[in-house]
């Protein structure tokens, strides 16, 4: 077992170091997987190491695992939401909407950022795929905020953090997978969806509170728009007219899900079509715009899919080298009181989130700790939602925050990864505050399921 521990640590370390060479994340993941497969095979075949490790059941499974992504209908939503975002951006609809909403929020410093949070929460209700939401928000909001002199870190931190809410606020494939893994009527998909709603909104509210505070204590980071008109009925009407199409689009997408016309996956396609129609109405749609949109959709979707491909190779090798068992033993051998165990689980999840993606963490840990937590007398839905918030936070934590990579792929050139790292720190603290609130007041989670489900 010691050998496994060394290998697992070695794998994380290799990845962490190579990442900072600046070689693309996706291929660092894949390459690390290859390197450690070689190490593992040498250990087994030449030195007779007692690992259950071989080529076939590690990297040999690469095509099977990629096919698992290929045949996942839910992932179609990713390029579709990206296409929708690019269309809204190309057609100028997004910028006009942002600029107009700000006229109403004008007197409030940080109006743009607050708008981003509000739109982000709405978006979160249409998609459960984190890459899609982060990229969409980044594309729509960053250029506008830059143009208006926002602090780089504040701008990018806001869109990055808000984008991760998509995985918490239902519909959410993360919660679906969790319910599937828990496999108990005590925490059905419905319970988790209802349970996640208030914590998700709470986090959104915390973000807004933070932005307002920043506006007061360091106003330079969130300047007021220069040529702000007085809010007259006339201005109000103009704003309404300008904002209406986009809001209508978002509501239409939400509506197709809410009224059961379409699944969340299908709604993404409806949104993409709607955005194209909006562009046409604004007379911004021509072949060149369309060509730009489709090719940029490919590049944006593909840098995300490439990370998925690299990550799946990384985790299958990690698992082959005994990674699961190392983590399991770490968790189950704890000599702590119940609350201590709970906290430790969340802390371990948080730190694993620096390196692994949420699917892997959910697969490895949730089924393992759920019985323990239930035995200790904790509410399973409450625990699972805290688990989910912790995972959502891990998307933001440097160095390996997947949301950080996603937003990096679409942000203006003047924003570097360092700016993003700096930008997400306050939001990570807000996440921890949110988690603490949920921990102290479990009814934030448990109240809605208790009245919602019969």
């Amino acid at each position, binding site marked *: 077992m010691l050998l496994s521990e060394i290998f697992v640590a070695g794998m994380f370390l290799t990845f962490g170091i190579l990442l900072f060479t600046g070689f693309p994340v996706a291929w660092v993941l894949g390459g690390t997987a290859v390197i450690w497969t070689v190490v593992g095979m040498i250990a087994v075949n030449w030195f007779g190491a007692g690992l259950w490790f071989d080529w076939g059941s590690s990297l040999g499974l690469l095509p099977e695992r990629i096919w698992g992504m290929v045949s996942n209908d839910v992932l179609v939503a990713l390029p579709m939401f990206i296409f929708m975002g690019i269309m809204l951006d190309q057609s100028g609809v997004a910028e006009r909407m942002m600029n107009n909403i700000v006229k109403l929020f004008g007197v409030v410093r940080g109006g743009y950022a607050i708008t981003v949070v509000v739109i982000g929460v709405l978006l979160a209700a249409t998609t459960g795929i984190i890459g899609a939401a982060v990229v969409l928000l980044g594309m729509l909001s960053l250029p506008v905020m830059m143009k208006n002199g926002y602090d780089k870190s504040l701008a990018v931190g806001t869109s990055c953090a808000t984008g991760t809410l998509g995985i918490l606020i239902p519909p959410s494939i993360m919660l679906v997978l969790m319910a599937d893994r828990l496999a108990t009527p005590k925490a059905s998909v419905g319970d988790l969806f209802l349970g996640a709603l208030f914590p998700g909104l709470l986090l959104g509210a915390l973000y807004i509170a933070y932005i307002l505070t920043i506006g007061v204590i360091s106003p330079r980071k969130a300047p007021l728009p220069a040529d702000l008109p007085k809010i007259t009925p006339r201005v109000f009407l103009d704003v309404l007219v300008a904002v209406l199409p986009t809001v209508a689009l978002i509501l239409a997408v939400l509506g197709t899900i809410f009224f059961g016309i379409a699944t969340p996956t299908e709604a993404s396609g409806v949104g993409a079509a709607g955005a194209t129609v909006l562009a046409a109405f604004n007379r911004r749609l021509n072949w060149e715009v369309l060509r730009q949109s*489709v*090719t940029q959709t490919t590049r944006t979707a593909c840098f995300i899919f490439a990370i998925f491909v690299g990550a799946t190779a990384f985790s299958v090798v990690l698992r082959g080298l005994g990674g699961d068992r190392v983590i399991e033993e770490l968790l189950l051998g704890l000599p702590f009181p119940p609350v201590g165990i709970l906290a430790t689980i969340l802390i371990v999840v948080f730190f694993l989130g620096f390196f692994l993606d949420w699917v892997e963490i959910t697969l490895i840990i949730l089924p393992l700790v759920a019985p323990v937590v239930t035995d200790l007398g904790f509410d399973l839905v409450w625990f699972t939602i805290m688990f989910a918030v912790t995972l959502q936070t891990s998307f933001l934590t440097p160095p390996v925050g997947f949301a950080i*990579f996603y937003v990096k792929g679409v942000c203006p050139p003047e924003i570097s990864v360092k700016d993003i790292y700096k930008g997400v720190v306050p939001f990570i603290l807000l996440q921890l505050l949110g988690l603490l609130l949920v921990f102290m007041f479990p009814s934030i989670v448990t109240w809605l399921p208790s009245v919602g489900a019969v």
Partner: protein
Amino acid sequence: MTDTTHDAPHGGPGDLSHHTELPTTRPSAAVDRVVQAIGHAFSWLWIVVVVAILVGVFGRYAFGMGSVLWEEIRWHISSAVWLVGLGYTLVHDAHVRVDVLHERFGLRTQAWIELLGLAVLLLPFVAVGIWESFPYFLNSYNVGETSQSPGGLPARYVLKFFLSVSFALILVAGVSRLLKCTALLFGVPRPMKRRQQ
């Protein structure tokens, strides 16, 4: 870093990624053109995916159509595009990097990192991908695999073939990029002159 030559055809205003500005070479330019053309052609299929989703949704309401077929069409096409797009994205150098330290390195250091990264990380990974994915496709082809759901698409092996296509495109795009690094570092193959922009 005053070199203004660009390593890859850029996508215009939407293309926001950062680039190590490598010189191009004759073989690289040829390979990039082909991968680029394939990527562009496949990108248009996103519109087909949108249409397939709309048809699936409306068909279910308007005509009580079964939607298994449309569900499968949309993920078949969507996946084919992103599989092909991985190599295309590499040509555009649009894969995400952690540039915290990277942006402080000089051009030659960046080129060395790129060279070693390609040789030690990307190309071995892609070689594994090709080595494993082709038999995976063959197996499916030999049994004439179809959809597992009634009313689904026939010939599932066609999409499985795209796994191999995907890795093959990443391979050639990767080699093309490797040549650009050697061109900068060792002058082999000869860097092509590009006009100043």
